[in-house]
């Protein structure tokens, strides 16, 4: 949204080549089979539990009749849960980096303070096809329907888990849950008692401090207060010069939980942040030098307050009410914005008879936006209000008890952006036996246009014809107030298997058909007088793109002994844009962003002694095709060694990107100049008392 697409335009004209997709499923099959044959038959469940140590037991969940805590193997979608133990063992310090721990999440560090996070395509700093929430509060900005990842921070020890759903979650979550849902869930105050101090210092992150204090009001009410400060040094551009991409973020939050009875739970939480984000901007002029690169800081700040009440009427029958207010400001070179969001959601889940598990809910959201365009950027309205009403209903029907489940559901939404939207889903789950299950789903999801897409007008640049400054061609990028929602129909299927009690595999396949995706059409050339006489051309946003993507995601988890766990993930995706009648299709090829065709991870978590952890994480991405500036394949290796000399004291040493002194993960797009991700070493101290 900040700088136009003229550079991308130029890139595209120079042409690109496509690469063929390479599947390695056969390799995987070959490497899993011998293991399967060697492992003894599954033992009963009770005995392995008894052999586990207390720390491992504390990680085990109790089976629950409640839908909200289903067994992973009973869910008919591609879900992965990053738990606190994985976060701690990874030694990662930034939220978007932690998302690398989930299979199929395409994370690229564009530079020191900007990330691209996507699932099944839709990449870029302004990637717009994910719904991201912290404790049910949506954190993507309506300005461009994406997330400013650099602003999002938490004391990482406060996170209970991050649920990552690949594929549409729109039938329950609603608009923007197109390619996936990331749901960050923090611990309750009762689970975060005592003082926690985390200090990290190293070559890149210096310093980082997280502090939390959790206290008890009485045995039914607890609270915690957390604060974190993080400073990120500047990275170098691929040519070795210093980029302007440093970052400082301060974050504070509190949470109070009160459980007056075993049926009721109340929670009140709030947070605030303030960040200074170094940015490169291009300012353009209708006179020489026509454009200059400007180094400018974005100032971003905000606060939020979230209240919730849940009542368990009986087992499997629960009502949840959640209300939040979120205020976000951002002052950048191109705009200053103030978005206030009020959101109210009610959800009821109940078992009907012995075969139906029903969940339904309502949501109301009201957003006021004040946006002021600056520099080369203008908005059509400085003030606007948007609202949304929605209702969803889902019924999980046990066609055969514990064996065959059919889930029918839909979200019905009415909002100020595009009117009404219906987002249904149909899912089947077949538990072939205790250790194998198959699932398949068809769903429709939509992405509403963002405020920016409806409101913006950007002077993209001026070019003198034949070098004559009196004969200018001006290139403009304009939004479209009539933009409609983008639609996705997703076909998914998956397979989960515990081949042996210590070895499990998860496979998901998808085919996504996108229509009505926002692209660009060429503006007809016309003489214009503002700001100086010129021939005005450019592009206008329109719902003129369709395309499809397909791919496979594989995960294997092997825990040969309690103290040792291996995991390997592989995902591959191919995105293809349909031919668009007319001449403007070259503007639109990147409808789904650009992601590496293949991603793989391999990790090892080893506890050689009870007081030591050793972790090894390999993350690799295939070559990222991008005109002019393709990103070569890369493999990063992170190692972490931790030692707990005393209870409550942990010392750790982390090396990140150890394979190379530096590598590029994402190309520069427009004025968002990329950096190489450097090798970094840092030491951490964690105290819990």
């Amino acid at each position, binding site marked *: 949204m900040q700088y136009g697409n003229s550079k991308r335009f130029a890139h595209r004209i120079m042409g690109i080549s496509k690469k063929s997709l390479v599947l390695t499923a056969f390799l995987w099959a070959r490497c899993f089979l011998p293991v399967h044959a060697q492992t003894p038959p599954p033992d009963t469940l009770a005995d392995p539990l008894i052999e586990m140590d207390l720390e491992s037991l504390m990680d085990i969940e109790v089976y629950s009749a409640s839908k909200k805590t289903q067994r992973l193997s009973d869910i008919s979608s591609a879900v992965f849960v990053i738990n606190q133990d994985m976060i701690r063992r990874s030694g990662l310090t930034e939220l978007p980096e932690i998302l690398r721990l989930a299979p199929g999440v395409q994370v690229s560090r564009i530079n020191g303070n900007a990330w691209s996070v996507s699932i099944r395509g839709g990449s870029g700093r302004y990637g717009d096809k994910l719904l991201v929430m912290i404790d049910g509060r949506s954190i993507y900005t309506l300005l461009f329907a994406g997330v400013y990842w650099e602003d999002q921070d938490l004391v990482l020890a406060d996170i209970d888990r991050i649920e990552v759903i690949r594929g549409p979650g729109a039938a329950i979550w609603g608009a923007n849950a197109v390619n996936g849902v990331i749901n960050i869930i923090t611990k309750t105050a009762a689970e975060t008692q005592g003082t926690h101090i985390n200090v990290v210092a190293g070559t890149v992150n210096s310093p980082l401090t997280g502090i939390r204090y959790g206290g008890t009001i009485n045995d039914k009410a607890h609270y915690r207060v957390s604060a974190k400060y993080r400073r990120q040094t500047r990275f170098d551009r691929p040519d070795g010069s210093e980029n302007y991409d440093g970052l400082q973020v301060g974050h504070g939050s509190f949470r109070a939980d009160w459980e007056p009875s075993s049926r009721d739970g109340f929670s009140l939480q709030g947070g605030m942040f303030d960040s200074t984000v170094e940015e490169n901007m291009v300012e353009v002029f209708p006179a020489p030098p026509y454009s200059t690169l400007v180094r400018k800081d974005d100032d971003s700040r905000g606060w939020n307050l979230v209240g919730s009440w849940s009542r368990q009427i009986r087992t499997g029958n629960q009502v949840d009410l959640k209300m939040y207010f979120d205020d976000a400001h951002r002052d950048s070179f191109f705009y200053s914005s103030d978005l206030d969001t009020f959101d109210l959601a009610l959800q009821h889940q109940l078992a009907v008879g012995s075969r139906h598990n029903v969940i339904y809910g309502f949501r109301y959201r009201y957003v006021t936006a004040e946006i002021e365009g600056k520099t080369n950027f203008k908005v059509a309205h400085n003030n606007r209000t948007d609202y949304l009403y929605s209702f969803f209903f889902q019924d999980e029907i046990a066609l055969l008890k514990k064996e065959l489940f059919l889930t029918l559901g839909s979200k019905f939404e009415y909002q100020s952006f595009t009117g009404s939207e219906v987002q249904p889903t149909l899912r089947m789950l077949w538990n072939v036996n205790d250790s194998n299950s198959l699932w398949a789903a068809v769903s429709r999801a939509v992405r509403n246009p963002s405020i920016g897409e409806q409101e913006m007008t950007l002077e993209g640049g001026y070019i003198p014809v034949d070098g004559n400054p009196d004969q200018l061609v001006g290139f403009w990028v304009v939004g479209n107030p009539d933009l409609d929602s983008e639609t996705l129909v997703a076909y998914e299927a998956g397979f989960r298997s515990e081949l042996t009690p210590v070895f499990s595999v998860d496979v998901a396949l998808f085919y996504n058909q996108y229509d009505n995706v926002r692209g660009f059409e060429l503006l007809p050339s016309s003489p214009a007088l503002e700001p100086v006489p010129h021939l005005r051309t450019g592009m206008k946003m329109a719902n003129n793109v369709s395309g499809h993507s397909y791919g496979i995601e594989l995960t294997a*988890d092997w825990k040969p002994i309690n103290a040792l766990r291996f995991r390997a993930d592989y995902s591959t995706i191919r995105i293809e844009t349909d031919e668009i009648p007319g001449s403007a299709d070259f503007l639109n090829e990147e409808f789904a962003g650009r992601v590496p065709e293949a991603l793989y991870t391999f990790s090892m978590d080893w506890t050689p002694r009870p007081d030591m952890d050793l972790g090894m994480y390999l993350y690799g991405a295939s070559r990222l095709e991008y005109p002019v500036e393709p990103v070569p394949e890369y493999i990063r290796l992170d190692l972490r060694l931790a030692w707990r000399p005393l209870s409550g004291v942990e010392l750790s040493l982390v090396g990140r990107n150890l394979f190379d002194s530096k590598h590029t993960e994402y190309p520069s797009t427009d004025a968002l100049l990329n950096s190489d991700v450097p090798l970094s070493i840092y030491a951490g101290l964690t105290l819990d008392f």
Partner: protein
Amino acid sequence: MFSHCFLRPVLLFCFGLLLVFQPDQVIAGRQAEEAQLKAAYIYNFGKYVTWPAKMATGPVKICLLGRQDPMAGSLGKLAGKTIRDRDVTFDVLDSVSAKTDCEVLFISHSRQEQLAGVLAQLAGHGVLTVSDIQGFAGRGGMIELVKKKNKIRFIINIDSVRRAGLIISSRLLSLATVLSGEQKP
């Protein structure tokens, strides 16, 4: 071509898999039946408790106070295991007295009403009392099992433990919520 770049980790992974690890008995899933999980906790508690000298030899007797408790089956499966080289036995009791010689006593939910009397009978006898009765630790019991967010956590009343002459290792304490004294339930 980029194919070679994921060949390397795949081969590495295959190599890792082929290293012969004797698969320990572990569950791969992260979920279990509540009673089985609680029994596993109780078995583990036994490893971190030092009983007074008179109870430090012979089998470790794990008892369940109360009939028809969902824990009966899973606690029964502990019989035949060992805790620090002592055999584990299991017994179901209908009542307790000053002569009760169980090392570990799990008090069933059904005995909630009689809890004060039961704890009084056992006072000072070196029996590790465990229960999932709500407020158990606050009412003078030693280890209370609580379900928090679908996981099992435990509260230790350190004063009750000390009064009974038991010693609990700091490792166990570090994982517990520790109470001292009697608190209002």
